[in-house]
């Protein structure tokens, strides 16, 4: 689960990482109040505030979602503009307001899971502020990698080594401490990814107005492990419902894995690999899948009925393909769920059902009695569903 920048920064701050101050505003008036506070802060070297849209998509800046303001009036105006935006289809409901930093140098630092080595790994670079994928393409030598010991974590010496390799110069101590802090944030929250880009040296006014430089987390991106959400009760509140399809919420309630896609053939499958395969075969047969839907193992008829409702909520769906390979899941349970769901559905959409494996014979008899269109093989089922969506015979 991805979380917004402001929430990610809160998690960093809770682990003692240096993050410049910020406020979250939901209205232009709130943004104004925050701006007044930061414009009056004697440490603010630029005399400006930055206002950033809180949406879970990349390219906020290019879309006009990140702007500077030099006065409270301007901050209110800018916040009003940003809060009216829709960025890549997502409405902006919150903005982050903070002092506009005077950036001296930008770095990149992240910790993530390296699947090949089955370890966590730091990625760092002195070329921050741009996408790390771009640095990897254009200047791969500028990237530093450091694995985290699975039993020891990141000892001090390894954190220092990482800081020196990245090249924080006089800020190496802060760099090493931040690396340790990012790992702590990851472990404390069961994150998959903690990414700071930029990690920046900024210039502020110290006492008597003398310039002071320090290394801070200017932006933050954190992804949380969905499998661990249950043991972090506070994290559910960080879910950005705008970044999800409403169907996702309904799917979670019934223990279904549902991902909406753009096509017109609804798919209902048991097992993730088979669900992906079913989508692929729909495409191969000349159709477009409307969704990924895994009803999981051992689904009973109520879960099947819920899955059917989810598929039918999408007005684009013109045909439905049900593909079940019964192992733990019993074919007759699925068939009963389908019959029940069809009796209740308001929209008449052609359906092609293929059920094999455990209790497939009972399922077949039930489906035949209820006059469902069935298919023996996966490829046949895909072809029939595509034909049904087009209103032609397979």
């Amino acid at each position, binding site marked *: 689960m991805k979380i917004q920048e402001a929430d990610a920064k809160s998690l960093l701050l809770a682990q003692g990482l240096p993050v410049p101050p910020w406020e979250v505003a939901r209205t232009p008036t709130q943004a104004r109040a925050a701006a007044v506070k930061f414009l009056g802060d004697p440490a603010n070297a630029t005399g400006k505030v930055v206002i950033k849209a809180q949406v879970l998509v990349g390219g906020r800046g290019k879309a006009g979602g990140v702007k500077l303001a030099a006065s409270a009036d301007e901050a209110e105006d800018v916040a009003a503009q940003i809060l009216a935006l829709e960025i890549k289809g997502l409405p902006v409901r919150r903005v982050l307001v903070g002092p506009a930093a005077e950036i001296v140098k930008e770095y990149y630092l992240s910790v993530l899971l390296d699947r090949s080595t089955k370890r966590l790994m730091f990625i760092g670079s002195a070329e921050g502020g741009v996408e790390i994928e771009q640095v990897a393409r254009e200047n791969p030598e500028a990237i530093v990698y450091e694995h985290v010991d699975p039993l020891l974590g990141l000892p001090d010496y390894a954190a220092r080594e990482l800081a020196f390799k990245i090249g924080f110069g006089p800020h190496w101590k802060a760099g090493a401490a931040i690396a340790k802090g990012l790992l702590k944030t990851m472990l404390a929250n069961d994150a998959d990814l903690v990414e700071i880009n930029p990690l920046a040296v900024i210039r502020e006014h110290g006492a008597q107005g003398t310039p002071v430089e320090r290394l801070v987390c200017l932006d933050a991106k954190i992804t949380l492990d969905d499998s*661990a959400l249950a043991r972090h009760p506070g994290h559910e509140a960080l879910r950005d419902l705008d970044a999800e399809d409403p169907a996702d919420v309904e799917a979670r309630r019934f223990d279904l894995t549902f991902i909406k896609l753009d096509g017109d053939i609804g798919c209902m499958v048991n097992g*993730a690999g*088979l669900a992906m395969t079913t989508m*692929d075969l729909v495409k191969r047969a000349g159709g477009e899948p409307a969704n*990924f839907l895994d009803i999981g193992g051992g689904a009973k008829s109520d879960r099947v009925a819920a899955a059917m409702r989810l598929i039918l909520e999408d007005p684009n769906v013109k045909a439905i393909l049900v593909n079940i390979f019964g*192992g733990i899941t019993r074919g007759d349970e699925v068939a009963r769920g389908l019959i029940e769901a069809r009796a209740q559905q308001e929209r008449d959409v052609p359906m092609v059902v293929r059920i094999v494996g455990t209790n497939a014979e009972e399922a077949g008899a039930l489906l035949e009695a209820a006059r469902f269109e069935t298919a023996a093989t996966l490829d046949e089922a895909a072809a029939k569903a595509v034909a049904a969506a087009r209103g032609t015979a397979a």
Partner: protein
Amino acid sequence: MSILIGRETRLVVQGITGREGEFHSLAMQAYGTNIVAGMTPGKGGQTALEGTVPVFDTVAEAVAQTGANASCIFVPAGGAPDAVLEAVAAGLKTIFCITEGIPVLDMIPVVEEVRLAGARLIGPNCPGATSPGRAKVGIIPGSIHREGRVGVVSRSGTLTYEAVQAMTDAGLGQSTCIGIGGDPVIGTQFLDVLQLFREDPETEALVLIGEIGGAAEEEAAVWAAEHLADIPKVAFIAGRTAPEGKRMGHAGAIISGSAGTAASKVTALEAAGFHVAGSPTELPALLRSAGYRG
């Protein structure tokens, strides 16, 4: 012969008294797997599976009393990493973890302990393995198999059943079928299984079933190109139509930017001499055209 499991397997089931554990243990037993012990803390001294199997409080005790040499874990996600550690501590070298939904950070130190102990963990979030006619460990339906000489390795569950059923229907039997699991951190990777199959004199052809996410298929392909050049091998990759940045059901099935795409895996496998199928039902015919005569 087979790999990982066989007639010599003496299995202890951790979590045998749970609903899933009991259900699948009965199916394993019916298939002919020698389940010598069950383990559920606090239920030591009882019996499971209709009185046929003694239950112990600890894995160490189960091993000492019954000579168990492999474990299958049906413990819920909160306790499963600990269950793996207990099996390792009891000296077991072959451990299957079926459990789904284990937080990934919990598995990192566990797979390291397994490695340091010289043990082998299959899974988590895997369906287990079957050596047709000999033993099955896990949840793969026994009915889909046929004895033979094709080694099957997959990241998936039901998709594996689909492919295996297609092979069985076409008369192509299997030496061992292994589901390695759909999580981002798993004990045994494609590459490890290919190495085991290479050492198995009874495995004469290979089926690899992968999916989007990670680079394990690519890593296996590089090794196979060098070490499995003369063996017929076919593959199927699920997720050609999966969108970027979404977890497709399996925690590990996610395309990140340009990494982990089906196209990258298909290209790597084809370059290594795998014939890549467009549908799992094509695998048997493709295996024949790759030169398999079994």
